[in-house]
């Protein structure tokens, strides 16, 4: 990622932080030999969004850790992840899925840098937060009948 793009992203993140009162801090992390340049966004309530800038095509990959999977619940979590991912594919505006990384459950999405402006970045960040909240809601209500569960991926977007 070029210096110009990094500076543009810094400006977008700063603008977003001033627009969203739920953002508590944003840091930039320089690339290393084996890791791309990254940003970390801390939200009110403890949510942390980690953003890696990857090439070919230039894009941002968003990751939000949802929790640890206890060894005795792995099979149940795999099934739940598949069900939530299947549901997410039915949501037009949500650009993410849930992956299992080691012992962690991680929500992941991506967006091209070329078409990114403040509005698109704001929408993606809130979509990912909304999907994270949907996941937690899903866990709380998974014992209920399907007709009793309403998921909402669009968290506080208005």
């Amino acid at each position: 990622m070029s210096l110009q793009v990094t500076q543009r992203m810094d400006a977008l993140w700063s603008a977003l932080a001033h627009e969203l009162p739920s953002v508590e801090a944003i840091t930039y992390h320089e690339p290393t030999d084996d890791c791309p340049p990254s940003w970390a966004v801390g939200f009110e309530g403890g949510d942390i969004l980690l953003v890696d800038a990857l090439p070919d095509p230039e894009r941002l990959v968003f990751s939000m850790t949802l929790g640890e999977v206890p060894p005795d619940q792995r099979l149940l979590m795999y099934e739940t992840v598949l069900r939530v991912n299947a549901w997410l594919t039915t949501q037009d505006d949500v650009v993410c899925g849930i992956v299992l990384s080691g012992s962690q459950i991680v929500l992941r999405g991506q967006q091209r840098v070329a078409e990114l402006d403040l509005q698109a970045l704001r929408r993606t960040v809130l979509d990912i937060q909304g999907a994270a909240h949907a996941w937690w809601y899903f866990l709380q209500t998974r014992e209920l009948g399907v007709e009793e569960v309403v998921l909402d991926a669009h968290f506080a977007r208005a």
Partner: protein
Amino acid sequence: MRISLSHLDLRAFAPPDGTRGLAPAERVLFERKPGVAAHLRSAMAEHRQQMRASASLVRQARFP
């Protein structure tokens, strides 16, 4: 033995503006609540460790 540092210009070792005590490879772009940036630093360190572990697993994988 006592060593005097009074002849050194320690300003050269101070973090540049914006880093607020983080390592030189990191910058705070925004901080509304004190202490959160330091928390983000450790979250990113863990994230990068996971990325390295995943990359290592992919390199080690052998497909028929």
